[in-house]
């Protein structure tokens, strides 16, 4: 994909969009809570990837994580710029909270489907863990294990960056690809 983007294949750009637009838009929306701002961030992110296909280093993790980290960074930057009210500390706190929420979304979509299904049943459908076990066709032990592990994964959203982001912050040259 990266090579195809570097070669300037419009068809590769289309594929990139189809594969990642829901992720990018979803994360941006979670941070910014605004449709237009999320649309703009989506444009920003894809424009950046298209204009700088070499910015992604496959050795540092999957493209998906990199794009998620890039999105979160862009969305947080936009949130910071558009916040007019509050002290710098309050704004930073808001950015931090919004970023954690976006990381949590990413973690949920990236966690093994078995864990996601357990959380879905217990939280969104309000089943207890025994019903969850029954619905999933697993032992009660396993249902408890999945719920606990799922939440443990999720709790890392508040303490760390996205998996690839903490290891490899996106190399975004200042002023490139975003209106200032």
């Amino acid at each position, binding site marked *: 994909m990266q090579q195809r983007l570097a070669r300037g294949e419009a068809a590769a750009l289309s594929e990139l969009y189809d594969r990642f637009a829901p992720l990018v838009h979803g994360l941006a929306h979670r941070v910014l809570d605004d449709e237009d701002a999320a649309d703009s961030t989506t444009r920003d992110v894809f424009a950046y990837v298209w204009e700088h296909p070499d910015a992604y280093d496959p050795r540092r993790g999957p493209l998906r994580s990199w794009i998620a980290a890039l999105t979160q960074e862009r969305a947080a930057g936009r949130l910071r710029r558009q916040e007019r009210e509050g002290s710098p500390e309050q704004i930073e706190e808001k950015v931090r909270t919004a970023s954690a929420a976006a990381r949590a979304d990413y973690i949920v979509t990236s966690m093994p489907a078995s864990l996601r299904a357990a959380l879905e049943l217990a939280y969104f459908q309000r089943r207890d863990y025994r019903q969850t076990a029954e619905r999933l066709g697993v032992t009660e032990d396993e249902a408890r294990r999945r719920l606990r592990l799922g939440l443990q994964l999720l709790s*890392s959203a508040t303490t760390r960056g996205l998996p690839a982001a903490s290891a490899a912050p996106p190399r975004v040259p200042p002023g490139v690809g975003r209106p200032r």
Partner: protein
Amino acid sequence: MARLPRIPTPRKPAEDGDWPARASVPRPRTGAGGDAETAAEPAAGPRTERMERTEQAERAERTARSAPDAPADPDRPAEGAGPDAAPEYDHVLLKSLLGAWALAACSAEETTALESHLTRCGACADEALRLRDAVGLLHHEDSLDLDPTLRSRVLDGCLDRRPARVPIPEWAVPYDAESARLEALLHDMAEAEWRAPVRLRWFDGRASAVRETTVAGVIGHLLAVDGLVAVALGLPDPLAALPLPKAAGPSARTEALWSAGGLPDLEGAFGGVPGAAARPGRAAEARADPEAEAYGGLFTGHAAAPAARAVRARWRDQGHTLLRTISFAGPGVTGLDVAYHDFRLPLKDALLERAFECWVHAGDIAEAVDYPYEPPAGPHLNLMVDLAARQLPGTIAHRRRAGLAAPARRLSAAGAPGRTLHLEVEGAGGGHWYIPLDSPGTAATPEAAVAHVALDGAEFCQLAAGHVPPQEAAAGQEGDREAIRDVLYAAASLSRL
């Protein structure tokens, strides 16, 4: 390209380790020092705990990324009841309840036992707080109905900033857009919706016809007919492994695929489904499981979700390959013809026809699962109407030969003006078309119009898709009724399975 994390197979109970147990083997505590919430811990206590937590998180992350089955935890049997545990609720059990507790998903008795334990066990209390905070991060996935116009805005914005060195030809863009829209619809669909019965309707020249299939069956149909374009481009025929009649057209190819219940080589296609490649046992499982009916039932309503996803992946991959091939092929490729059963279309028109079919069948699927689905963008709709309008004269002539249309009224020399129908299509993508009535060879002119039909663009396409019987088309009509009838019936006759 990154793939979604694979879906791990359900673990056998024997493999169930208490996942974080190793990291939190209970430390011996004295009665007072055991209360980490209030009492000062020995210096090593909190530090160890932090380290343990980091380790947990890292392990959790590894699990999330690669999802290997957790090794059976050798520590577990050694982990006995804490000093404070009731006989039926030992520390291990209580700890395992923490996730369920944070989600308010255990029994009242368990909740009481655990909460009493939390006042005595600092490690569990810490984790309980963390997990409860984590619950606050759970969030209903917003219905990701991306604004369908966002795609073209984003892509155009990108291409303005850095023009493509290998662009998608203008005439292939509707196919790119429509296949992406269908893919987005499928992406948003829940598992159960894949089993929804889908009604395919068309007009067979004399009457409305209908066939019922599944979502997977519709995607199989698109795969089979898009395959005609693939073959014209020299790409592999996706149905190569099936016994096909000679010069099989869209219907015969679709029937062949449906009656085969799938593709023999779709087993291999499981590798194309995210996560399946790492599970060599998968295809065998699917075969062994009579419930799954992975192949036999693929298009009859019992489709196993993985098999349905494999068909979808195959269709999508083929679409990507078509666009890529066309992008690299250069202008010469437009000279190619695509052979349908009893007619040929130039590649440009064939791809437009595939875009149209993709929209129509996406609409069929959307209707079956009760999703809204918009018509294509105006400029694309315009091209589709234009293609249909261009096919009308030939179709009228064909129907006339079959005795289904009124005989020509006038014999005009080729190129000379003849009786004309003025087709006015309203709304986005609309326009005016002049259809020669007596023979495809005559010139159609506004002056020679004997009838005028006006209808909405999407309505016209519904007619051309065979979804609206010609006698019921909501069209403003004026002039020669026989001419109008012939054109509306010809429009409906453009449809087929």
